[in-house]
Structures are given as structure tokens and as C-alpha cells.
């Protein structure tokens, strides 16, 4: 089997040695916050104050208070600081600053998204003029088709992000109610709980209702298609919001699908123009395309640092930031450029200083499959408890090609193909669909590039896209001498797999197959199944 050189941390960790003591079996939150030494604790404290100021500013707007009491999912946002604590477990120095810089920005972005939803919502803010310039899009949809519109005049509302996806990060039980609603209405329980919860939210009438039109995307799975149907039906028939179906080819590596996909993008843009009355602007598009390319360059640079013995930007914050920047932003907001630069500077600084975030790194892992790591602090736990360093995850391994960013007649035609390519290869589609080339070959190539000896394979119980490949993964990992550790879960339904049931699969693998003892035994079993 392939082995990698163990990297040992010669520096003493600032503050407390183990974060194991911060967990409590009596509470649904941490017993206390981690002591990280004076400098890092003070930094973490100032970021906590910043988060409170973001939340405080939000709740001071009367319509936001109204929205808070109208929508059940808003309850999750009481626990934003708790969610942030999950993504900083055991972190010090640059990694702590990277996690805060990236995730604080995501939180501020989501807070703004909620404020926008409430402003236009017919039941809360009811700002009709604003709502008439809003376009609702899917949670799992690339917003490339909005890159050429003035974002001050046409507002892209990723309605499902604050309602379901982000709210679940802060409170692991919050979507169970919506899953029950969906299943009580006859939706089968064996589909992915993410789109099923979204369907439940729609059935329960717990989505904000706004916008002059909506664009839906055939996302990645049976659950998503089913959910979109239910949501579109309510949008169109009850609320009179016309909904465009952006049909995106799934076999995105086949060259003959590109023209069809580009035509779909054209149609989506025409649909938005028709309903908002605003015109597509090529200058604006190519400015956004430059920013997309910059984000891609930064992501590649971050992955290069992670391919060395001293990775810096890792864990759930890495994929969440990429998710927001690549999919939710798509070059439209220049603010991301500043954050990209700051994150890269921090990562380079940490790499030069050879910073490590555990006593030792024993294994270098690629995290593959449909991942639930947003809801739990799994990847940080793996580093601290077992010295398994997650170098990259499937959702962050997205487009690495540069798109056309100069305004020429030829590039205007190319732009539709670029937008189509980005849309086809978006986060949840680029590896789960497109055949074994993107799911298997890409993985082994990545293991080679990042010098990984282990694949942590998330096995999502309700995801049919990957289940059929189980045997092929086993066979090909064996041929290459790469350890493959299967970890089952059911995404955002903690009733199927609790946090400890998930972590125990890693514990068992590390003890029985790897024959290793934990770096930090106090973390092997954490009493946080009932925690938010």
C-alpha cells in the first residue's frame, strides 16, 4: 500500500493541548470556548464580536424581526456563533484566520441574502418595486446567466441557500421538521434529504415569496428533480411566478452537448431580460469573467499549497467558501477578490512558516463523495484526533480552465459556451455526473497530484448517483494501493446516522485497518450527538 512520510509538529501548541474538554453531554452547545493562547483567543473573541455585530445589525430592521417570527428556519440563525466554533476546532495561527476570513464573509453574505428575501417577501417586507427586479434561482444552480446583469438593478435571490442549506450548518436538527412534512405528504424517504427538505419547506409554505420570475436547474439527482417540480408548481400556480427550466446536460465531458447547453444559457438570459425588463451588458459580463478567472487562479494556488507537507486552507470552510464564490457569486461581486487575496496571503504566510495544526500528520486524504461535513466538524476532528489531513474535497475540485474575458465578437459566442461549461461542471454536478471519468479517474489523478495515501469516501445513503460505483472504487483503489475509508451518512438527517455513528466508522477503520492509536484520545468519542 502507498505510504506518505509522517510530518511531526515540533512547535508547542498555544493554549490548551486538546479541544476535547469543550464538549459536554449535558448541553446542546459547547461547555465553553477553546483557550487558544492569548493572541489567538483574543483574535477569536474579536471575530465573535464581529459576528454578533452582523447579526445585531440584521435584527434591528423591523421587517427582519417579522420574518424571524414568520419562518421556522430562522431559528437556526440563533446559533451562528456555535456554527463558527465548529469550523475552528483546534485551529491556531493562519488556519484560524483563514477559517474566520472565509466563513465570516460567507455568513455576512448569507445574512444579506436573508435581508434581501425579507425585503421583497410578499408576507414580510412586501417591497413590490424591489421584488419585481428579483430573480429566484436554485440553491445548487450556477448563476453564470446573471453575470451580465447589473446586480444593483436585477437581484439574484438564491432563496434555498439561507432557508435550507446555510441554516442547516448552524443547527443539525432544523430540517427534520420539513423532512417529516414532505414524508407526511407522501414523498418517499429514500431520496436525498436536502432537496426533500426543500420540497417540505415549499409544501409548508415556508419559503419567502418574491421575484418576477425564477430559474430552476435540473441539478444532480432524482431528489432534486422531484423537489424542483413541487417548488415550481407552487411558484407558478399559486404565486404566479413564471419559472424557467434550465435543462443542463449531465454527460458534460461529451463535446457534442456543449452547443445545446450554450443554447439553454441563451434562453435563460432572454427569459430574465423579458421578465425584469433589464438588458444583458457584455462589459459587465467580461468584467465578471475576469473575476471568475482570478478566483480560479487563487483556488489552484490554494490547492498547490495543500499538495505540500504543510496544507493551510482545508476543511469545511474551504469548500463552503469555494461554493459561495464559484456558484453563488460567479464573479458578480468584486468584494470576493479582496477576500481571495487575503486568504492566499495568509496561506502563503502559513506555508512559509511551516505551520501545522495537529501534533503530527500521519495520512494525507482526499475527501470524495457527497459530503455532510458542513453540519459536523468532521474534517477538523480527523486532523486533531487521527492526524488525517484532508487536502481537498470533491466539491472544491471544480473548473480549472480560464474562460474568455476579453470583449471580442468571437468571445461573445464563446461566452455562452463558457457559461454553459461552468454550469455543467458546477459543484454538485461535475463529479457526480459525467461518467466514471469524472468520478473515478479524476480521483486517482488528484491522489497523485496531492500525494494522498488515503481516500475518505463519504457514502451518502440516499444518493443514487454514487451507489452503483462502490465496487469500482474498491477495485481501483486496491490496484493503486490507496486506502479507501467508507463513511456512511444521510446528509442532513441526523436520525439515520448520528455524529458519533459517523465518527465511529473512522475510529474503527483507523484502529482495525491502519492499526493506529488516536493522536488525541479525548476526541475519539465526543458527546455531541444532541448538540446543534
Amino acid at each position, binding site marked *: 500500500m502507498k505510504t506518505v512520510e509522517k510530518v511531526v509538529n515540533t512547535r508547542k501548541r498555544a493554549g490548551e493541548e486538546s479541544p476535547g474538554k469543550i464538549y459536554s453531554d449535558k*448541553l*446542546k*452547545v*459547547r*461547555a*465553553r*470556548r477553546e*483557550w487558544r493562547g492569548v493572541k489567538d*483567543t483574543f483574535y477569536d*473573541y474579536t471575530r*465573535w*464580536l464581529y459576528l*454578533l455585530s452582523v447579526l445585531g445589525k440584521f435584527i434591528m430592521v423591523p421587517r427582519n424581526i417579522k420574518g424571524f*417570527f414568520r419562518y*421556522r428556519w430562522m*431559528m437556526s440563525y*440563533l*446559533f451562528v*456563533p*456555535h456554527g463558527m466554533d465548529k469550523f475552528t476546532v483546534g485551529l491556531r495561527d493562519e488556519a484560524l484566520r483563514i477559517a474566520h476570513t472565509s466563513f465570516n464573509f460567507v455568513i455576512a453574505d448569507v445574512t444579506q441574502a436573508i435581508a434581501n428575501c425579507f425585503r421583497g417577501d410578499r408576507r414580510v417586507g412586501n417591497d413590490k418595486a424591489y421584488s419585481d427586479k428579483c430573480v429566484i434561482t436554485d440553491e445548487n444552480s450556477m448563476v453564470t446567466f446573471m453575470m451580465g446583469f447589473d446586480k444593483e438593478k436585477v437581484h439574484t435571490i438564491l432563496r434555498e441557500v439561507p432557508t435550507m442549506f446555510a441554516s442547516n450548518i448552524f443547527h443539525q436538527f432544523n430540517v427534520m421538521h420539513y423532512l417529516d*412534512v414532505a414524508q407526511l*405528504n*407522501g414523498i418517499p424517504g429514500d431520496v436525498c434529504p436536502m432537496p426533500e427538505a426543500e420540497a417540505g419547506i*415549499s*409544501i*409548508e*409554505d*415556508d419559503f419567502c415569496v418574491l421575484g418576477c420570475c425564477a430559474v430552476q436547474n435540473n441539478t444532480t439527482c432524482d431528489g432534486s428533480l422531484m423537489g424542483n417540480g*413541487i417548488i415550481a408548481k*407552487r411558484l407558478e400556480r*399559486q404565486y404566479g411566478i413564471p419559472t424557467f427550466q434550465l435543462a443542463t446536460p449531465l454527460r458534460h465531458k461529451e463535446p457534442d452537448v456543449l452547443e445545446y447547453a450554450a443554447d439553454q444559457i441563451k434562453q435563460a438570459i432572454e427569459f430574465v431580460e423579458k421578465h425584469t425588463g433589464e438588458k444583458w451588458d457584455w462589459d459587465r459580463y467580461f468584467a465578471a469573467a475576469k473575476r471568475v478567472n482570478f478566483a480560479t487562479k487563487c483556488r489552484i494556488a490554494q490547492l498547490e499549497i495543500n499538495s505540500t507537507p504543510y496544507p493551510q486552507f482545508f476543511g469545511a470552510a474551504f469548500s463552503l467558501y469555494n461554493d459561495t464564490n464559484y456558484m453563488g457569486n460567479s464573479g458578480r461581486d468584486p468584494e470576493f477578490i479582496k477576500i481571495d487575496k487575503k486568504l492566499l496571503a495568509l496561506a502563503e504566510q502559513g506555508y512559509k512558516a511551516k505551520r501545522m495544526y495537529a501534533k503530527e500528520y500521519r495520512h494525507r486524504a482526499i475527501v470524495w463523495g457527497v459530503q455532510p461535513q458542513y453540519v459536523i466538524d468532521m474534517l477538523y476532528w480527523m486532523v486533531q484526533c487521527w492526524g488525517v489531513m484532508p487536502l481537498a474535497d470533491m466539491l472544491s475540485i471544480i473548473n480549472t480552465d480560464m474562460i474568455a474575458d476579453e470583449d471580442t465578437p468571437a468571445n461573445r459566442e464563446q461566452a455562452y459556451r463558457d457559461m454553459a461549461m461552468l454550469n455543467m461542471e458546477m459543484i454538485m454536478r461535475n463529479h457526480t455526473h459525467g461518467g466514471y471519468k469524472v468520478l473515478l479517474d479524476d480521483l486517482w489523478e488528484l491522489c497523485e497530484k496531492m500525494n494522498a495515501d488515503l481516500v475518505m469516501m463519504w457514502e451518502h445513503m440516499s444518493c443514487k448517483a454514487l451507489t452503483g460505483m462502490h465496487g469500482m472504487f474498491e477495485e481501483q483503489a486496491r490496484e493503486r494501493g490507496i486506502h479507501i475509508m467508507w463513511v456512511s451518512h444521510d446528509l442532513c438527517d441526523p436520525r439515520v446516522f448520528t455524529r458519533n455513528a459517523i465518527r465511529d466508522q473512522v475510529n474503527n477503520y483507523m484502529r482495525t485497518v491502519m492499526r493506529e492509536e488516536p493522536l488525541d484520545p479525548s476526541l475519539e468519542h465526543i458527546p455531541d450527538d444532541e448538540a446543534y
Partner: protein
Amino acid sequence: MKKLVKIPLILLGILLGFFVVTFTVYIFNLDMKMMTFIEPLLEKWYNSREHDQYL
């Protein structure tokens, strides 16, 4: 003159007081512990609401 000395001292005292209170809340996670008491009440409120279910 006395006033000029007093103002920075008062400001320092306010800042120090703010730091002591907020840092205590931060380090003992009192903010999140308080939310665990509020959450069940909110849940009751949301459960009591009528919903227009539509499929």
C-alpha cells in the same frame, strides 16, 4: 484640566467594563447557552402557527 484627565479615564473604564463582560460571555459560551433556553419557546411558537400546506 481635571476634566481632560477624567474623560480618557472614563472611556478606559467603559472599554474595560465592556471587555470584561463580553469576554466572560464569550469564553463561557453564555450566548449560546442562553439560546438553548430560547429555542424551545420559539419552537412552540412556530408549531402553533397555521400553515397553508400545498402539494
